[in-house]
C-alpha cells in the first residue's frame, strides 16, 4: 500500500513537472524563438523590398471611380486619369515580405509568406491562395494568439475605425478595421474573395485555446492600389472579383 502510494505520488509529481515545463516552453520559451526570427527578418525584409522592386508592374487600369464613392479617410482622385493596378512579385514560401503595424495594440511584426506550422513560428503568415496585402481582393493573414511571440494577443481590442498599416515592396497600404467576429476554425468563408481591398486577420480564440477563431476585417483606405480597388468595387460585377 505504501509502495503504491509512493509510486502514485512520484507519478503525479512527474506529471506536474511535465505540465509546468510544457507551459513554460509554450508561453515563454517559444517567444524567444520567434523574437530571434523577427530580428533576423527585419534585415531580410529590407533586402526583399529592394529585390522585388524590379518585379513591380502595372497590370491593369480602370476609369477613376465617382468622387462620392470614396471614403472620408482618403477620397479617390478627382481627375479623369485612369487608376492603375500595381502588382508586386509573389514571395516564395517562408520568405519575409512585409511589415504590419497596428498602433492601437502597439504591434509591429514582420509578415511571412505561408501559414504552415514552421512559418507561423516565425511570425504572422499570409495565406498564399489569397491576394497579397495591398492588392485588390481579400488578403488573409494568420498569427498566433498566445505562443510564438503572440503577435495577435490583443487583437480582440481592435474596434471599427482602428488603423492597420502594412508595408510591402509596393509601398505602405493603410487599412481601417470595419468589423470583428468569432467563428469556428472551419469557417473558410472568411477567406472568400471580396470586392475592393481588404485585409482579414485570423487568430485563435479565446486566449489559450484553439476552440474558435477571432476574425478582424479591415478595408483598404490608402496606398498604391487604393484608387484601383475602389474603382474595381464600383465598376466590376460582383462575380468578377
Amino acid at each position, binding site marked *: 500500500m505504501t509502495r503504491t502510494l509512493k509510486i502514485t505520488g512520484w507519478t503525479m509529481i512527474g506529471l506536474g513537472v511535465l505540465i509546468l515545463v*510544457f507551459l513554460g*516552453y509554450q508561453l515563454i520559451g517559444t517567444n524567444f524563438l520567434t523574437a530571434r526570427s523577427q530580428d533576423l527578418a527585419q534585415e531580410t525584409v529590407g533586402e526583399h523590398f529592394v529585390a522585388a522592386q524590379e518585379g513591380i508592374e502595372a497590370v491593369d487600369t480602370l476609369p477613376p471611380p465617382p468622387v462620392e464613392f470614396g471614403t472620408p479617410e482618403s477620397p479617390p482622385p478627382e481627375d479623369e486619369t485612369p487608376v492603375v493596378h500595381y502588382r508586386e512579385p509573389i514571395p516564395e514560401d517562408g520568405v519575409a515580405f512585409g511589415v504590419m503595424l497596428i498602433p492601437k495594440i502597439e504591434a509591429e511584426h514582420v509578415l511571412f509568406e505561408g501559414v504552415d506550422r514552421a512559418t507561423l513560428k516565425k511570425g504572422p503568415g499570409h495565406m498564399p491562395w489569397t491576394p497579397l496585402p495591398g492588392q485588390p481582393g481579400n488578403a488573409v493573414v*494568420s498569427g498566433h*494568439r498566445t505562443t*510564438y511571440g503572440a503577435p495577435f494577443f490583443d487583437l480582440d481590442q481592435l474596434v471599427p475605425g482602428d488603423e492597420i498599416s502594412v508595408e510591402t515592396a509596393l509601398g505602405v497600404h493603410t487599412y481601417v478595421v470595419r468589423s470583428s467576429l468569432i*467563428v469556428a476554425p472551419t469557417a473558410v468563408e472568411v*477567406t472568400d474573395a471580396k470586392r475592393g481591398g481588404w485585409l482579414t486577420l485570423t487568430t*485563435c480564440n479565446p486566449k489559450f*485555446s*484553439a476552440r474558435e477563431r477571432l476574425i478582424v476585417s479591415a478595408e483598404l483606405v490608402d496606398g498604391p492600389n487604393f484608387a484601383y480597388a475602389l474603382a474595381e468595387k464600383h465598376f466590376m460585377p460582383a462575380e468578377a472579383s
Partner: protein
Amino acid sequence: MRRLFALLPGPLPVRVIVALFALALVLVALFFLFEWGGDLLDSGGVVGPGQ
C-alpha cells in the same frame, strides 16, 4: 534513475547505449507531445477545413 539504469540488461556499455536510446525516445515523444499540446493551446489561428 540509478535503479532504473541498474535494471537494464547486459554489460555496462550495452546499458549505456540502451539508456541513451531510451532517452532519445523520451525526448522525441516529448517533442511530439509538446507540439500536440501547443496546438490545443494555440494552433496559429489558421482557418480551414482541416482545423
